[in-house]
């Protein structure tokens, strides 16, 4: 079963969410990462995401499997975009369903934190001043 995917085309949240349905689930938490027009005080025009796709998939799967055993979930899935994204585009979608909302919130937060820490995907920000650069966070928290 594939819980994690890497997508070169637009993410459709309605389709992604279908995988979370479960008659025992009372809570669903969805996180979406959107391309915003600013980062650390700089004005952002566009983003590119690059992935080492085979490893991104296996790391993503490992994170979601671990989430299923760490938290009392019914289902969990996630997808990350690659390629060129404009302001407002969805870069990442994470969905979980659970009997109770405590587990759903905790798992959702844990999954997106792990994705940002471990999955081999890189962001290149194109700034309003014409500069651009790959982000390689150095221990500082990533939002």
């Amino acid at each position, binding site marked *: 079963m594939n819980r994690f995917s890497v997508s070169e085309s637009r993410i459709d949240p309605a389709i992604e969410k279908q995988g979370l349905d479960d008659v025992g689930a009372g809570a669903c938490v969805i996180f979406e*990462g959107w391309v915003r027009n600013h980062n650390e005080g700089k004005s952002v025009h566009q983003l590119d995401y690059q992935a080492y796709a085979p490893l991104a998939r296996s790391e993503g799967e490992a994170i979601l499997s671990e989430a299923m055993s760490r938290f009392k979930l019914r289902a969990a899935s996630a997808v990350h975009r690659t390629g060129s994204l404009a302001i407002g585009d969805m870069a990442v979608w994470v969905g979980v369903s659970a009997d109770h909302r405590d587990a759903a919130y905790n798992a959702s937060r844990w999954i*997106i934190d792990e994705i*940002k820490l471990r999955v081999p995907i*890189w962001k290149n920000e194109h700034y309003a001043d014409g500069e651009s650069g*790959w982000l390689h966070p150095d221990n500082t928290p*990533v939002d």
Partner: protein
Amino acid sequence: MNVRLLYFASLADQAGRAEESVETSANNPATLYDEVRQRHGFSLDTGRLRVAVNGQIVDWTHGINEGDEIVFLPPVSGG
């Protein structure tokens, strides 16, 4: 032996390419990275990288074999 290297993000920019085949006698990824770093002028050192061999994250002392696909992974910034 011959191995295939893939480059991502700033490493790809600094190498001016996304992949290359290299002849090397390095017996682990750490030594191999020193070789290619010198050639391409990579700014990141191994303390800030992870390394994958054939799609698996491994230690810097992991053995290297003919035909391996080797990727030096800069700190990630997905999400």
